[in-house]
């Protein structure tokens, strides 16, 4: 059974479309990252998967069930974000007790151990926690629930570096001991690169890429050298990013589909080839550093509209 299956999932909020027909599927028991820039539709997609939102069109399935209004999906999945709302009349410890009552796989020992490790006060209240503490507490619930589908939406908001590190370690350890499907959306892709098995990249409500982390790491390549050293065939390649270094040299980030022959030629021309990390590839790919709308262009005042490098749709 596929853990998650999406067919042409579309979500509209009034006139605004947050997701344009996203299709993908996820195998069980994997850690998958969901990346995308702000407003790419990550949260919308995750909320549809846990049944908090209803897709406007298309079909989302979690373990073969449509998530919206589905008790089975709700019992087997959990959605953790920094907006979680718990009754203020309950203390932190009582909230964990409630979790134990509701989730059949709940590991209360793990919950209490993490609770103590991160120094929570049993009589504390959720609404009195700082942003980082709140995220940490929510993370404990997400881990302890041992839900078949565990979704973390920006789980590290407000956490300091040490806690983030602890969280990733805890996540990995618990995942290895009790494999389950974990979906993780984060801004800090560089931190979770080694944790993830697959990555899904969303851009402006579209699925840009769904690939294994291995492929992602070799997805892009950086080519830098003198302008005249660039062979003619380079023009036909997909440029993710291009940066001029002075009048004579430039660096081009392009999709790594260079053949061995092409690589040889580049090397002969004295052009340097270097690897691009997954997180950098993500940044280039989602157009953060692209010609159009690139921050440098904003400051230099000439926005190179329309022409030139454009990220090709994948």
């Amino acid at each position, binding site marked *: 059974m596929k853990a998650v299956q999406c067919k042409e999932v579309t979500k509209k909020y009034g006139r605004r479309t947050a997701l344009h027909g996203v299709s993908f599927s996820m195998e069980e028991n994997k850690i998958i990252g969901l990346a995308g820039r702000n407003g790419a539709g990550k949260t919308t997609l995750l909320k549809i998967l846990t049944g908090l939102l209803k897709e406007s069109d298309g079909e989302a399935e979690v373990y073969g069930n449509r998530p919206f209004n589905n008790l089975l999906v709700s019992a087997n999945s959990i959605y953790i974000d920094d907006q979680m709302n718990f009754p203020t*009349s309950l203390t932190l410890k009582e909230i964990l007790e409630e979790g134990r009552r509701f989730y059949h796989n709940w590991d209360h020992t793990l919950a209490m151990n993490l609770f103590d490790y991160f120094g929570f006060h049993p009589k504390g209240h959720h609404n009195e926690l700082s942003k980082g503490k709140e995220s940490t507490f929510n993370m404990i619930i997400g881990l302890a629930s041992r839900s078949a589908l565990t979704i973390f939406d920006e789980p590290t908001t407000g956490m300091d570096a040490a806690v983030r590190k602890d969280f990733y370690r805890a996540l990995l350890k618990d995942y290895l001991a009790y494999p389950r499907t974990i979906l993780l959306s984060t801004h800090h892709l560089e931190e979770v690169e080694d944790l993830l098995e697959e990555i899904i990249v969303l851009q402006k409500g579209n699925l840009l890429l769904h690939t294994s982390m291995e492929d992602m790491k070799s997805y892009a390549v950086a080519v830098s050298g003198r302008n005249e050293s660039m062979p003619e065939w380079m023009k036909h390649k997909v440029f993710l990013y291009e940066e001029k270094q002075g009048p004579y040299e430039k660096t081009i980030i392009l999709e790594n589909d260079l053949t061995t022959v092409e690589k040889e030629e580049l090397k002969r021309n004295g052009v340097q080839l270097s690897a691009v990390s997954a997180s950098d590839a993500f940044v280039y790919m989602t157009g953060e550093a692209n010609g159009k709308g690139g921050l440098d262009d904003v400051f230099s005042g000439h926005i190179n509209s329309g022409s030139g490098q454009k990220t090709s749709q994948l």
Partner: protein
Amino acid sequence: MMVLLPILILALVVAVTAFSSIGTMKMRLGQGKTGLWMLGGYFVLLLVSMIVSTFLPSETTASMNEESTHSKKRSEISIPMLIAEGKVDEVNKDTLVKEWSFELQDHPLTLEAYVENEGGPGIFIEKTSDLTGKIQASYYRSPIYVDGLKVQEEFKPTLVMNQQTLTVSVENPVDVHYQMFTSEFPFTQFSQNSVGRERGSRIEWGEEAVYIRVPEETEIIGENGNYTLIDPAA
């Protein structure tokens, strides 16, 4: 729409209270177990009140059925009418509140009556051969019922004999104050007794009369129409 206005005002009051206590619960107040403690405390308070209220001096008024029998009895026998007809013997002895006896020589009797409010007791005088040298007076009053409950506070007119003047004064009205508890609407809705029950208009007044017997030959000097002379012939 007249019914609606107080309801809307009420709704506002309740809403404001509810919002200020429940609403703020999302923030600070009412956190933790306050609600449970308050509820527990409140029930203890209610229970204590329930027990205490059984020890309070209180009386349960008669139900409607009994009330109607009271009124029937009274309508049967009208005290002033009986006395006026000379049938004093037929007046219920229970209604006799007080008796007086005064010396009276062979003088004319002057009767003065001070009645504060208009509907004071009627004064009936009977000349009788049974008495010589004295007069006898008695005051009859049938009970007043408030919501079927007999008013306990007694009232008697003052009769004073000075020389040959008998003064009947009815003053200092008796103030009676009741705290009446009625059943709440859910508890009256299904009880057959409550058909057409109206609150607050269930005082049933009794009747009263001052009956004075004087020696046969006594001449009575009174103000116009302040007494009724019982005609033995009638």
